């Protein structure tokens, strides 16, 4: 069953044509990854889906419902949570408040407490830091917080933008393991990564973006085996 359908999306930043006729599909339960070099349009694709940038042409539909022109704060209530590039935790808010911000659109207070515990089960480090302001956390902890914050919304579709950026290899592995865990627990994931190798390892399917267009797509294994992908993105 299709959860997300992007069709022929064109996004502009001023005069810059950032996305050109991009189409992609995400089925429920999948981990789909967008790979590509810097400036290929990966982040822009996620921003268009979560409503931070609106396509000039094309449509975006969540479970068949058109959300092309829906503002970001409305989309957040429809089951999409976006972990933005660079984590963007609220540095002056405490860890707890950051997590509560994730549950901002929800009103079921008791469940929020239960979800806090669930997030702490995935990221135990956050529990130790619950009263600290997020700005005092390390980069890895901030990434965990940003992901935990998104989980607090109980999303159906989780958009992850470069979760491995700037992290030590050990932490990268831990983050990717969490992505798999989150997916197994029933959340569909759309993952943007520069670390194409790691991304294709966990993903079901992938799309390759180049200067704003989709140039290749398919099951993760076949992309991993693809000659061009190996040359361009896996450094072989």
């Amino acid at each position, binding site marked *: 069953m299709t959860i997300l359908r992007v069709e022929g999306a064109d996004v502009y930043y001023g005069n810059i044509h950032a996305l050109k006729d991009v189409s992609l599909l995400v089925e429920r339960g999948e981990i789909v990854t967008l790979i590509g070099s810097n400036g290929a349009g990966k982040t822009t694709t996620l921003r268009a889906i979560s409503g931070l940038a609106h396509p000039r042409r094309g449509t975006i539909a969540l479970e068949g419902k058109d959300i092309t022109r829906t503002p*970001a*704060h409305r989309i*957040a*209530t429809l089951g999409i949570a976006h972990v*933005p590039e660079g984590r963007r935790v*609220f*540095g*002056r808010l405490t860890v707890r408040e950051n997590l*509560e*911000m994730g549950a901002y659109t929800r009103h079921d207070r008791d469940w929020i407490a239960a979800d806090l515990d669930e997030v702490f089960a995935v990221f135990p480090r956050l529990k130790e830091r619950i009263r600290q302001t997020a700005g005092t956390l390390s980069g890895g902890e901030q990434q965990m917080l940003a992901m935990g914050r998104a989980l607090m919304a109980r999303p159906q579709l989780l958009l992850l933008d470069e979760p491995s950026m700037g992290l030590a290899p050990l932490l990268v592995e831990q983050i990717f393991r969490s992505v798999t865990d989150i997916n197994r627990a029933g959340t569909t994931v759309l993952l943007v990564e520069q670390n194409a190798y790691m991304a294709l390892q966990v993903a079901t399917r992938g799309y390759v973006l180049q200067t704003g267009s989709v140039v290749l797509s398919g099951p993760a294994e076949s992309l991993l085996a693809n000659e061009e992908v190996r040359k361009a993105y896996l450094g072989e």
Partner: protein
Amino acid sequence: MTTAVAAIDFELLGRIFPRVLVDGILLGFVYSLIALGYTMVYGVLEFINFAHSEIFMVGAFIGAEVLLILQAARVLAASPPLLSLLASVLAAGVIAGLLAVTIERVAYRPLRGAPRLVPLISAIGVSFFLQDLVRMIWALHRNAFYLTYPPIEVFNQRFPAGAYALWGGAAAVAIAAIGWLMRRAGRGVARARFESLSMLPKYTSIALGIVSVGLLILDPNRVLTVPVKSLVVIGASLLVLSVLVYVVNQTKLGMAIRAVAEDQATASLMGVNVNQIISVTFLIGGLMGGIAGALFGLQFGTVNPYSGFIPGLKAFTAAVLGGIGNIPGAMLGGLVLGVLEALAGSYLSLISGGAFGAEYKDIFAFSVLILILIFRPRGLLGEVVREKL
């Protein structure tokens, strides 16, 4: 005393000190209330709302108007003074708050994407517009250029604060004990909300304790009297400031305001309607500005359409002094500026043997401000949040 060579009369300086301090704190709280409007709006939009001084002035006019209407209806003298005050202050706050929201919608929001100077010019335009609008309305309405607050009898009496210093100290101890018991009883519950509630007796007792001890030291003969009006203004300011601190730090709305202040795009990803939060911020800022206007009018008696300019400028200064965008900073900045100004106003001429009169108080206060900003450009509590990559 006014001869140039007269020795400084230290005994006199000491004797008037408590009174000067009360005046300074009062002025300081009024500045704090106004400064919060500047600093909160700056926090969410990084924009100085220069029309805020006129929002304050409108509050002062509404406050006076309500009391004048009550007086004309002959209920002012008959009804409890605190009730009249509440009506006046609330009306001033609500109307000023709604005015601030309207100004943002009409004059600032359409310019959201424009270069920074553009909304600033728009704000200055709104300032002039409001000054002349108020002038026109009240010229037609009362044929008067300025309004005089009708006197409320009780407020002009004096409260023998010195005589009550020991009682105040006892009350502080009692409240501290209640707070301690509350925290003990609530230890098992440990809910964040309860914790914040138990802060109330803690800070009340600390404040009361400082005041009582201060009184015992500064006024050993227990003769100090304070105008009831001043106590009412200080008390009302403290109440409003406490409610604000609670809302900003302990409620979901306050959390959303802080999140928007930090990162609008990410806040919207959380489902926060950023425009709505910006409106709420203007509402809160205007509310406090309007309340400050009514309290200011009550304290100093008359207001005219240009009364907002100087207090507004000083409150803006207080916000910068405390660290623009920083809420505790605005409160501290206001208090520091108010106390400095009162000290300068009373002591400059006494210490300089009359060479510098009270009219130099602003020069003194602003010189201190410039010095502080030279050594701490971020302001007293301003911080630089370092972002990790």
